[in-house]
């Protein structure tokens, strides 16, 4: 009896001692709670409230914001654009980055130069890169038209940003170009961690280049590719500066994704409630992605 009481007391004391860890965690927790979690909660509150144009919350417990949002004629387009944007950029970037990583993993003349070039985009904000591309793609005095005309590839200037389809495609190209560097570095580090022994054994067995690629490199690179895909789906989904700078949805709100449309709703139309409702929609989309991803992961692990 006495022993048990002693043990319980000791356990409690240990608990109290352990709670001291929270002193160490306090600064981090404070930042996260006050500046990350509180805005998340606020988004929920605003989404279900009546909000005036002056951003005052009037009444909680309404679905009006969602009704307004779903009634917008551009809404379906915003959603499909977001899916196309994310899938196209991530899929094509993974493919190209994989090739780039394989290339940069070889020894060849100029490799150091190409690796340095790949670092350059980190030094530049997405706003600056997007501004440059906005000028490059300009119909009248744009650099790309000037280049193609000079090379004789086209007879007259092309209006790259004139139609929604063409503008969106070009912004996807810009998205791919800014996504490749980070992806390539992640995949390159994955490649470098594959032991040479595998390849030496394969060569002895008379394996061809393709055998090595599909039987050794890609399977062993799988974890790195998975991490890259997850991270970049989140990054690309949240991408803002490219579309906000180059078209900001033009023409006729046809080139928005969720993020740029969020901004337009809140800060150009003063529809804060609808914007918060769209934030919740985007949380749901990301959650669905997370569930789908975990499912496929589990299936793979079982297989």
């Amino acid at each position, binding site marked *: 009896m006495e022993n048990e009481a002693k043990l319980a007391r000791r356990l409690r004391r240990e608990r109290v001692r352990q709670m001291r860890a929270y002193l160490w965690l306090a600064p981090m927790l404070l930042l996260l709670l006050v500046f990350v979690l509180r805005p998340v909660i606020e988004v929920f509150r605003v989404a279900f409230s009546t909000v005036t144009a002056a951003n005052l919350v009037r009444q909680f417990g309404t679905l009006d914001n969602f009704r307004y949002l779903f009634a917008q004629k551009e809404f379906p387009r915003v959603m499909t654009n977001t899916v196309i944007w994310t899938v196209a950029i991530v899929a094509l970037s993974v493919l190209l980055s994989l090739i780039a990583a394989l290339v940069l993993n070889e020894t060849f003349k100029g490799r150091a130069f190409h690796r340095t070039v790949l670092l350059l985009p980190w*030094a530049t904000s997405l706003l600056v*890169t997007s501004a440059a591309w*906005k000028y490059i793609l300009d119909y009248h005095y744009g*650099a790309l038209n000037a280049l193609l005309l000079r090379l004789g590839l086209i007879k007259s200037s092309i209006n790259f940003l004139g139609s929604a389809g063409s503008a969106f495609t070009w912004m996807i190209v810009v998205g791919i170009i800014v996504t490749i560097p980070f992806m390539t570095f992640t995949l390159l580090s994955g490649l470098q961690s594959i032991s040479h022994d595998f390849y030496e054994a394969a060569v002895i067995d008379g394996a061809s280049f393709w055998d090595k690629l599909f039987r050794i490199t890609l399977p062993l690179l799988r974890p790195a590719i998975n991490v890259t895909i997850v991270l970049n789906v989140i990054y690309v989904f*949240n991408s803002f500066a490219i579309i906000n700078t180059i078209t900001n949805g033009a023409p006729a709100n046809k080139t928005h994704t969720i993020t740029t449309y*969020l901004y337009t709703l*809140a800060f150009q139309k003063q529809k804060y409630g609808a914007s918060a409702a769209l934030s919740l929609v985007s949380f749901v989309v990301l959650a669905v992605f997370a569930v789908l991803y975990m499912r496929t992961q589990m299936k793979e692990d079982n297989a």
Partner: protein
Amino acid sequence: MKHSKGYRLGRVVLYLFAWLMSLFILYPYLVMLLNSFKDLDTMFRIPGTLLPEIWHWENYVNIWKDVPLLTYFRNSAVVAVFGTLLCIVCAIPGGYALARMQFPGKKTLMSLVVMTQMFSPVVMMVGIYRVMSAYGLVNSLTGIVLLVAAFNQAFAVWLLQGTFATISHELEEAARIDGCSRLSAMIRIVLPLAAPGIVTAMTFVFISGWNEYMLSLILIGDANLRTINLGIRAFFGYTGTEWWYVFGASILSTLPILAFFGILQRHLTGGLTAGGVKG
């Protein structure tokens, strides 16, 4: 040694791909650089021009006189420097506790840290704007500093937690037996060993602070508080874009980070890739 036809074809493809990729990445920089030396007439000629007819080096002198570029740079530096310091000061004890201590709720906390990484500030801009209004931090660089520190916190904590976990306990325990407190053992023994991880984390927070755009776009209205990115954005007026300032300012805005990179390049790729794969 004679190479097979397949091998030689492979090499050609390899060179071609490497150069094409570099060309696509470098192209916008080349356009910015060339255009920053043009005069207005050449810049807006239809159809467009590739090279400046006359190289106007004085563009880079005039921009400092015409535009409050120095203020923009100062504001960006405030955001990047103080955002980084605040972020790292909070992340070091947090990362240390997660790596070294056992406490109730640890698992929940770990997943919370990972989850906050999924919440980009972009998708909650209305919430951020309203909360910052309530705190009285709209139109204030302090507000941006706090947000930069907060939204990079999860990443920094995660990276540092990984770094601390790789450092052996023994030295630290020896120091504590010698009468060091936990805090001073951490500062004297663990931090110096964790320096590479700390520098990597700080570099990435610094870059994200310097390049920060969306938060200041929604929170800063005062022209005196514009960061370099907001300054560049302001050249996109209603009547047309003042491209001649955009290019000069863009090139100048990348220089501090490039200089930073020059010093840290080797170190950075190592640290980043380690974090990237573990992440």
